[in-house]
């Protein structure tokens, strides 16, 4: 009788522990997943912000760089590609195109001293560089979040529950060739 009671209690305890573990695991999966979505929203905001800055830049540059039609057109084209992109990876590819076009534009601007002295242009240049950096850092954060999520749902014993929850591995955003490598961290 006593033995039955003890065994019953132990079984009950095990069930409770497994349930508690499952609840906390479930919440973690949801939290990590939300973080990925949030990280993507961040990137999207920055992409839009950058696209919004381009018309201003064009307006400022127009009077100075009339002979650089090709450079200006490349920027405008890349901008509309960003605006019309549908999937995350498409957005990122268009964004890389825009980064390249802007890099050319700013390099060309070096040979226009009047333009370089224009306060408005300088401010736009700072801000565009800033949004570009923010885009690459939000992409980095996105990929970090995806990696954490994938680790969470693919490692044992979590993967059993992840399967039950129907969670699938997420895709990281491809990073353009020039990006920096992750340093090996050791303590």
């Amino acid at each position, binding site marked *: 009788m006593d033995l039955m009671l003890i065994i019953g209690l132990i079984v009950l305890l095990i069930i409770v522990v497994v349930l508690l573990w499952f609840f906390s695991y479930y919440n973690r999966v949801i939290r990590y997943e939300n973080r990925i979505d949030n990280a993507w929203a961040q990137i999207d905001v920055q992409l839009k912000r950058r696209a919004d800055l381009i018309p201003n830049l064009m307006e400022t540059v127009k009077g100075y760089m009339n002979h650089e039609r090709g450079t200006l057109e490349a920027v405008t084209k890349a901008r509309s590609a960003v605006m019309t992109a549908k999937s995350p990876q498409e957005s990122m590819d268009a964004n890389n195109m825009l980064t390249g076009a802007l890099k050319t534009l700013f390099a060309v601007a070096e040979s226009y001293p009047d333009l370089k002295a224009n306060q408005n242009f300088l401010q736009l240049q700072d801000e565009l560089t800033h949004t570009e950096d923010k885009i690459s850092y939000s992409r980095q954060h996105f990929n970090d979040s995806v990696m954490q999520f994938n680790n969470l749902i693919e490692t044992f014993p979590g993967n059993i529950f992840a399967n039950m929850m129907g969670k699938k591995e997420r895709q990281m955003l491809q990073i353009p060739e020039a990006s920096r490598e992750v*340093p090996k961290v*050791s*303590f």
Partner: protein
Amino acid sequence: MAPQPRLIEDHIRKNKFDTLVICMFMVILLFSVIFAIGYILGAPPILTMMIGLPIALFYIFITYSFSIQSVISAAGARPVNPQNREEKLLSYKVEEMAVAAGLPTPKVYVQESKDINAFATGHKPSDAIICATTGALQQLNSEELEGVIGHEMSHIRNRDILVMTVTVGVVGAIALIAEIALRMMFFTGGRSGGDRKGGGNIIVLVIAIIFIILAPIFSRLTYLAISRRREYLADADGAYLTRNPEGLAKALEKIKADLPDDPKGSKTVAPLYISNPFKRALRDSIWSTHPPLDERIRRLRSM
């Protein structure tokens, strides 16, 4: 300790746990000091609990609530001025690092000082502040400034700012209480032994006194050890955020070359800075707030 590579999420999780343990340890140490004093004064434990604990909790609460203002005013820092290009670029860098860490953007402050330095303060990521000196803005290039901001952002992400705030408060409280207790004992001679039964209590009494004398030193050493360890961690995490350990390494080299000649703020908040504004540690010592710069640079370069 042999260096071993570890996943960044793992050590952040461990760091958060450590934070909790350290805060609890500090509070327990504070309570033990109070009980030891109560014992020496001959007060019944229940009385000590009713008087000592509320006072201690109140003290911690006060230090906690006013810590941000007191750090900012001790440093003489002011909010960033977006009209100034250098300061605008600083707030841009802070925004970028916040995005990389997935944290809300901290408030950005500037401290007028010729020295290259920076610090972070706050209780949690949502009320955090990052402050850089004007010297840092003038002398560091974009890559180096990014390294420094990444380091500070890691202090915020690892909840080091809370540990520092709480430990600064508790270390101060323990020192203060121990001092008062020792003075009181000196004047009253403690409680006469007649109240107590048996000779064993004398030994307990002596142990309690020794404990009170040692507690401030002990708490200070613990605090310094935490501070140094967390600097290494923040360096490593900062490098992970920027994906560029070299930026911070170069910044630290500039800091090393630039001797501190214009320190501002109080010595109690020195551990919050990226490098001690009052002195440079050349060797590893249990009394220093920061590990030596050379060692930090070496570790960054070996990543």
